[in-house]
């Protein structure tokens, strides 16, 4: 795992998790605060932080660190 992982840092601060939280633990299923309301704010935050716009079909699937990372990778966004 890259130590300066901007996506992980963003998710950790966004959901107010302990600083050392592993990327693999960042899923909607395991983060209680990751509800549909947070999802809306998170999409805005991600789009603004990484300068991207997600597809409608994609948005529904952005429910974990891994999915978001994959979506960013498809746009060649370096993390």
């Amino acid at each position, binding site marked *: 795992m890259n130590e300066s992982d901007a996506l992980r840092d963003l998710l950790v601060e*966004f959901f107010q998790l302990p600083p050392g939280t592993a990327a693999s633990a960042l899923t909607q299923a395991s983060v209680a605060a990751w509800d549909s309301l947070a999802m809306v704010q998170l*999409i805005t935050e991600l789009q*603004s*932080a990484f300068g991207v716009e997600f597809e409608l079909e994609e948005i529904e699937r952005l429910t974990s660190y891994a999915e978001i990372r994959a979506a960013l990778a498809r746009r060649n966004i370096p993390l």
Partner: protein
Amino acid sequence: MNPEPEPLLSRLPEIVRGPVAEAIRDASWIKVRRALAAFELCAPTEQGPEVSIQILASFELESIAPALCLGLRCIPARAGLRIAPLNTIEQELLEPSSPVYAQPGLATVILWRADELLADQLYPSSASQAVGGVRQLLARIESMVERYLAASSVPLLLGTVPLPAALGGAPLGSRPRPAVARAIAALNAGLFDLAARSKQVHVLDVNWWAAQEGRAHYDLQMDFLAKQPFTVAAALSLGFFLARHLRPLIVPRRKVLAVDLDNTLWGGILGEDGIGQLKLGHDFPGSVYLRIQRELRELKAQGVLLILASKNDEASARQAFEQLPNMLLRWDDFVVRRVNFEPKYLNLRAAAAELGLGLDSFTFLDDSDFEREQMRTFNPEVLVLNERGHALHLLSGLLRTDAFDIHHLTEEDRIRHRDYELRAARSLPAESNLPAFLASLDLRAVLEPVQEGNFDRVVQMLGKTNQFNLTTRRHHLDEVKRLMAIPGAVGLTLRLVDKFGDQGIVAVLLAVPEGSPDSLAVDSFLVSCRALSRGAEEVLWAELANRAAAAGVRRIRAQYLATAKNGLVARLYDRLGLKRTAETSAGADYVLEPVQPSAFPGWISVEGNAP
């Protein structure tokens, strides 16, 4: 030209100003959260009062709640929002047991959205369909508002309806868009009319706000994802807009504006350039100064007291007022004129003493960096309206400030200027001939119960009287009504009239039974600082004693609760003949027992007293 910063921001404590500015700059939810967290680090006194706001909306506002909260925290206020479920405005207002009535807050806010409210009219097959729909809708809204006013005394902020961004730019030829725009304009005009009928209803012109924000406030993706179309930046802006409208319910407006002359009311320096070279008129740059004068004249009409604070020779300044063409303001428009070479902070202190007002009700407009800095240093209570000295900054400081915000002007606001102008004539001479002087004023005190018709003034006085205020209880309207509904409660207002004119209601006393019907406790007792030393307090107290005695009350308890500002009345009850029963640094307890009728001061005639 960079505008003056958001007025709310400039007053924030250092440790939150940075985080709030960053949240606005980056329009990021993480930054919004950091800014909210920074408020928690402030001293409780810097965080403002705890208030709750009820929001009913046809936008889904939960997802932008933190942005709205941030605006409210900047008032400052520890604001809690209760956002009703989406599209339940009508149910909430019509249902007597709904949370709007069960948990009333500081204010109730209604935000409508055309897409919901006018769903049928947004895509009408004919123009008449759109306009006809609006009439029906307005009738419905009117009955909702009437129901609200009958059931609640909490202020209602009634939003206007923003033109949907997706329709706003449509060219005129693409019918039926103009019909939709016309329908929304008609709806908004109806909402303004509706609000004008009650002092409890204030318009929140969301349509104006959305127009200012422009197309940038609208995010199509958000609209479908979150059932509200606001970008983060727009959500923050909406929060500040809302805060600006709620602030007058929490913070009293400033009463005084002290202005400089040279390069403030006209361009150029009188003492160096001479009257002939000063710039004031319809051409640039004189037009900027003319506009500043126009704004000042408007503020005066709204009850703001104008003061001149200028380092000039007084005779020359007066001459300029008389001879300079295009002057809108007159020498007499200023209630106090301190035109001399003393430091301005001393001049403002003297003016405050002369007017009987605290420096915390003063604002200051001056082109000189030195004067503004000196004012900030020596009179930190004074709010400086402009950050820089350029004439356009003076003007924009005036246009943007929230210091004079008020929802409805009372009669006292309208006559305040004339009243203070007459103060000089009324001001008290040496102690020795005081009774003779008071007698020469033909003072008349008109007593009235606290009741419908003067509630506004009573709440206003409870909210802002600092010096002659025994308990400094800042009751809102609801609380005043509740106290007055207690059987045996006594609420009195005193209107003072003298040979110069009517000063309006200048004193209030509230007392409620405690324990048993034969014992009264004074809840609040206050006199406006412009009516001190006239006998208002003696009249009110005597009237309370007379009414109490007639009603069989045997004991009146009263308290002095010390604040930083009410030392003036620390010994009032001793003077009125009550017995002090306890005293600490926080104040003192008093009792009057038995209660006997007492006489009014000889120099004042009283009307409306109990027989």
